[in-house]
């Protein structure tokens, strides 16, 4: 059954994979976007790398279609970070 977003259904491995892809795309942006000063860029590079590592670890550790509920906190945090970076680079 294809559940709607936000209906309380479990977070899937596909969700994690999609998030992972977005992070890898974002990593290129972090490297060159002019909005970052040097200090922010170094922070963003390292933190983005960290999220990529963590998501990869989560993906590999998930043997079923849905991820363990204990890991939802990690996913939401990663999604928030992605959104946060996007907000930063698109802000005036």
């Amino acid at each position, binding site marked *: 059954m294809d559940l709607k977003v936000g209906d309380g259904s479990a*977070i899937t491995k596909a969700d994690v994979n999609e998030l992972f892809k977005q992070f890898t795309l974002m990593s290129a942006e972090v490297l060159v976007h002019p909005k970052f000063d040097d200090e922010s860029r170094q922070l963003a*590079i390292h933190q983005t790398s960290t999220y990529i590592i963590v998501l990869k670890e989560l993906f590999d550790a998930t043997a079923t279609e849905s991820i363990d*509920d204990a890991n*939802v906190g990690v996913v939401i945090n990663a999604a928030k970070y992605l959104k946060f970076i996007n907000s930063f680079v698109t802000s005036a």
Partner: protein
Amino acid sequence: MDNKSFRQGSSTLIQDLVGALRTASFGKVLLAVGAVAGAQAAATYMGLGSATGSLMQMGGFVAGHLPAAKSFLVEASQWGPAASLPVVNAIFAGAYATIALLASQGAVSMYDHFRVGTYTEAYSGRTGLRQPVKGGAEVSPLLGDPNITNDEKAALEKIWSEFHGGSELAETQQLIDKCQRRMEVMSAQGDQSAQYDLGRNLLLEATAQSLAEAKPLLESATIKGNAGAAYYLSKMHYEGLGVEVDQAKGLALLEMACERREPLALLKIAQMYETGEGGVELDLASAERCLERAANLGCVSSLANLSQVREAMNSQGVASESVSHLSRQAEKNGDPDAHFKLGMLHYSGVQVEKNQAKAIQHMQKASAMAHSAAQNVYGQMLLAGETGQQDIKNGLFMLKSSASSFNPSARAKLAQLYDEVDYVRIDAGLAGKYKTGGLTRVDAERAEEYRQDTAGAKGLVDVMPKEVDQKDVSSMAAFDAFYASNGYASGALNQQEIIHSADPKPKPDGFKFG
């Protein structure tokens, strides 16, 4: 949003990630080990500069992944004394190592391999961070690389067109909403992690309604043993957030959170020891202990405080327990890492009185035990004459030994030497090799090859010092013994053999990247 706000928000989110990892069901063992190794080193080295500090914090950040934590730590340990390198190179060296790690594990797609190249290019200083604007958009430096193939170029351009599309934002928000709903379901089912997450978010919203909703969630999670919930509940009572101020209850909950190893609670207690807040007796040693514990749990915020507390201890003549511990480790157990750390502390004057002689002594001992970072530092000290007399031959030997263990600082220094310095034969090929480490166009296979590279042994072939008495090897007796014990012939230090032997020898045991 300005850069300062970005850094603040970013640090908060990454701290939350560390918290989320602590309750996650994957990588728990790695988390524990990585957190201890990472943050302890971070705490030890704090104060050696912002780039160093930032890199070291990563040891705690990536606590969920031990190899990554180790690689960050190795990176981080290099940059303290390497002040001559531009900070930006230090930064990219860290990213470079991380992405190389990802590549070596097959954790990145083909697209990301190009990014490894991008990082490497930036690291090597051969290109700038960004290229001139093309068609109104930033383009990757790699697009200007004459060696890039059409397929690679097409893939790289695809990355840019995809990312600049902006469609990912809506999808990300959908995922956040989905996670939020899922946590609400889990919370209703009594899941303490979800109750904690929701409760904390409501508390941070700080409206009358959100505070009222946060309290029962945090109470429920606290009863079930959640450390973070106990901390935030203590904050509510201590500060009177949505409830009457009750400092005694707040302190009792804070103590409970500390017993449950909540880093933020340790940070708060440390602050009380440091300032006497809440009637707590001033005690810098206890503050240091709490901050170290917090740092060991991956608490980034504790690092700056730890540095301040140690400065205060230093000025007041209060002995730092961490230095005493390191001294015991070094003297009784002959721990090379302890020697290295003590060397760094004496070199920089952090936590202890600055003492060049002691710094050299510790670095020499750690180097003789194949500590890669120490070999790098000691090698650079020898070359710079910081040991009293410039020693080019032994300095190069140390750097090459260090480079054989994937030490980016040693590689960068060697690249610089082969590029510019007159006492080493100028060799653009070798300089390029050390700059890029063979990773300019990397893939998993190349990354693995790089890790296996016994460049230190191979590189010895290229040593051509012009001003060194080649018969003088007496000062290398300790290293002779070391290399002999690691399968090297004792004659490995004979200059003729160094120059002519082309057989790579197995590198000594020590840190192995990844």
